[in-house]
């Protein structure tokens, strides 16, 4: 070895990089005082002008939630959460006269997006992406509505969908993630404030990639988004989700729910780049990201594909899953998860094979550095009805530094003799010989590590839409460079 990269001052500086997106926009928020009871839920529902079935559903969820306990099985250390100290509703003040177009949007908000490198109109036009920007809990700007509505695609905020398409909401809400599902999903069902809704009608190929930028802003506001995507027969949609959050010291709870429904011959591709505030180098602060994501391939020949790049959050608890009900349906999961400093990630997927000839692929890449703890937890379940089902799972871990941990907890439950299930996992560090090879060819240690890490993640990155792939690589570079030990 020419030098030990861990002690290289240039690399130290890189590791020491502060969170780039850390700032708080001072906007007056229309915030409900902290605490949770039935009155708060009624208030949320009333503020959003929801039909009565929604309120009933929320109350039902809340009552069920009261009987539940926080899950303890994950390989995570979570400091106790006081659910009564969270404010469950926060909307930007200018909500009263909601903006009809970009010009009407609070300029301070737009500035925030600028700082994040998301010039909404610019980016939207250049990239051909419709952006439904969720700022805290209420959508404030939606673009490209016209082009989408010409194609018949409904892409709007969840609250808008509740008012405009109550029949779709009533039909599909909670059918993939029932309100009784788990502690955090149930909490979300009771108190969710907004999110995105997509409906792609029969035979329509969505003309552009749909995208939502989430951002947690007002301090002490838990975010409870709810996303519902329905791809009707023969339709196709690709959805991008990306997140950044400002820096602060207090842990914030984020418990979102995402439900996907793919009917016959439909395809849904859901991509996430998650870069929420991970806490500082001593593990203070950071977002708690407890998300329930699940898709159901309800119709024959349908396909759901999850791709995620998880670099942020102090704690990630997230298992995007596929229920493969339809014959010949396909579920895919591609993931890169990074745990640096004191980050903890317990993430993976569930593939439930019910229909005949269903197939699933899982590719998971975990990177641990600093004191990070990264766990892959996955379930592949083949029910007796899933004749000829196939699963292939690969999960690899890369370790950087002797204080971090990488763990794998795969569950495989097979009840069909014609099924074939394969699982492979490896764990290792970046080889000294690999580094030496690069260094001896004049590549700096930093570039070499970058190259090796990008190579390690390539199988996942190539599944990301173009602009996300670039963003993901940059994110990874910022999160990791110099961490090699």
């Amino acid at each position, binding site marked *: 070895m020419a030098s030990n990269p861990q002690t290289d001052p240039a690399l130290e500086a890189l590791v020491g990089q502060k969170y780039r997106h850390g700032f708080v926009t001072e906007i007056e928020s229309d915030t409900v005082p902290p605490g949770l009871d039935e009155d708060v839920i009624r208030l949320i529902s009333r503020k959003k002008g929801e039909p009565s079935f929604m309120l009933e559903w929320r109350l039902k969820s809340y009552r069920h939630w009261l009987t539940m306990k926080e899950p303890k*099985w994950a*390989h995570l250390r979570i400091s106790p959460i006081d659910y009564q100290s969270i404010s469950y509703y926060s909307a930007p003040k200018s909500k009263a006269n909601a903006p009809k177009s970009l010009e009407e949007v609070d300029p301070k908000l737009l500035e925030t997006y600028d700082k994040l490198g998301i010039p909404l109109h610019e980016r939207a036009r250049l990239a051909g992406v419709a952006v439904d920007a969720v700022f805290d809990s209420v959508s404030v700007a939606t673009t490209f509505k016209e082009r989408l509505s010409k194609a018949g695609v409904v892409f709007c905020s969840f609250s808008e969908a509740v008012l405009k398409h109550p029949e779709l909401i009533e039909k599909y809400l909670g059918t993939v993630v029932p309100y009784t599902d788990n502690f955090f999903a149930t909490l979300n069902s009771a108190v969710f404030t907004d999110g995105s809704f997509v409906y792609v009608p029969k035979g329509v190929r969505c003309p552009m990639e749909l995208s939502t930028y989430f951002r947690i802003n007002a301090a002490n506001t838990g975010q409870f988004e709810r996303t519902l995507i329905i791809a009707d027969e023969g339709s196709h949609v690709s959805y991008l989700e990306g997140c950044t959050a400002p820096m602060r010291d207090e842990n914030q709870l984020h418990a979102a729910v995402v439900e996907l429904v793919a009917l016959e011959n439909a395809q849904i591709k859901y991509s996430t780049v998650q870069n929420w505030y991970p806490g500082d180098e001593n593990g203070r602060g950071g977002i708690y990201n407890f998300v329930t994501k699940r898709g159901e391939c309800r119709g024959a020949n349908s396909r759901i594909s999850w791709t995620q790049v998880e670099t942020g959050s102090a704690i990630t608890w997230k298992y995007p899953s596929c229920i493969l009900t339809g014959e010949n349906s396909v579920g895919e999961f591609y993931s890169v998860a990074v745990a640096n400093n004191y980050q903890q990630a317990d993430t993976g997927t569930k593939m439930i094979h019910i229909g005949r000839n269903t197939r699933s692929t899982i590719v998971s890449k975990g990177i641990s550095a600093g004191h990070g703890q990264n766990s892959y937890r996955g379930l592949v379940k083949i029910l*007796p009805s899933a004749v000829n089902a196939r699963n292939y799972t690969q999960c690899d*871990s890369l*370790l*950087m*530094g*002797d*204080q*971090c*941990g*990488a*763990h*794998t*907890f*795969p*569950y*495989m*439950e*097979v*009840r*069909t*003799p*014609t*099924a*074939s*299930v*394969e*699982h*492979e*996992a*490896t*764990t*290792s*560090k970046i080889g000294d010989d690999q580094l030496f090879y690069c260094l001896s060819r004049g590549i700096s240690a930093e570039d070499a590590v970058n190259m090796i890490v990008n190579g390690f993640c390539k199988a996942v990155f190539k599944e990301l839409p173009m602009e996300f792939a670039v963003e993901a690589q940059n994110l990874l570079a910022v999160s990791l460079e110099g961490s090699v*030990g």
Partner: protein
Amino acid sequence: MSAATAGTLSPKLERYRELFEKRFASDALIEHRRDAFNQFIQAGFPTPRDEAWKYTNLRRLESRDFAVAESAPVGIDPGQHPWISCTANRLVFINGHWSPALSSMMPQPPGATVLSLGEWLKHEPERAQAYLSNSPSAQTVFERLNAAFAEDGVVIDLAADAMFDEPVHVVHLWTAGLQSSMSHPRIIVRAGRNSRLTLIEQYLGLGDSALGCSEVFTNSVVGVELQNGAQMEHYRLQQEGSRTFHIGQISVRAQEHARYAIHDLAFGGLLSRLNLTIQLQGSGSHAELKGLFTPDNSQHIDTQTRIEHIAPHTTSEEDYRGIAEGRGRGVFNGKVFVHQGAQKTDARQSSRNLLLSPTAEIDTKPELEIYANDVKCSHGATTGQLDTTALFYLRSRGISENDARTMLIQAFAQSIVSSIRSPEVRGYVETLLKGRFSLRQVNP
């Protein structure tokens, strides 16, 4: 946990308490036993809500009433025994009690001691207990139950450099026609520096087909301590009868450059579970695990292995294979745990399973938990049916479907069997598997 709260015990645990008090009230070691027993009562039987018991439900075991097994009048013709016959050092236990008449030992090599734990406890309870207390304390519920009820077993003590030329063969046999009983055998191995030992641990049930055969419960505990450079080869054959609950624990601690190799062959029992824990405490220590389990009919066979790499430069290799037929259910949970500081660990694990019937099930969970960075760890798991191209290949050469399937199943098992170094054991297992897989129609 069905934990007993505030003094009120479930009727089943109460029944265990009655048995315990009746049996051991005047036992010389009642205090030690009671400590363990109280811990058992505190925890109660595990339920599927406990992660380690997710796939194995003990409701049936818990609901049964077992008496403490009494030694049976020896009614076994030594010429007609079902165990491995050509071993020279053999200790036979009938219904959990040592049978001197059926046992035979070669003169023991210098520095080596092999004795019946029951005899020792009878004659020198204090010394025996002192020796037992030096062993690592019981961790799991069933180890505690064993510590409370253990009456017999084997103690093998090897001084430095001592070695047995011949394997030590320990046989546990349930006789037919006794009432529902339980036994809690214990095997303790202490192997000094550079000593060597081959241990064959065999569990058998007689009178499987006999009418009125009652349910029995075996709860065995094996503790192994390997000093620097000690080597042990361990063969475990679980061939209990079809109405037996079998719970086994093996815990191994290996010091520097010690080597431990086990072949875990689980064929019998109604509900069978093995917890195998290996701690590689000294650098350069090595563990090798090979396993084969073959649940059929409505058998449930569960294997849990945990390999802890505690010291640097430790290595482990694990290869488990399962063949599930009928309504059988096979469970494998293998964990490799690399402690912080255990650099240069090299751990390989593989779990391969054949699922041959639509009503059978395989649940496998190969886990890695790693807290060191300079390691090489990998695991692989597969579950599937017989390779259709291989079947086609054989059939196109004029081999009947049935023969082709039998060949492939045997070949699948053979990779575990062929690595058995002891010729006595290998020959015995090969015959056993041949009988199991070739003398009957395999359902397509």
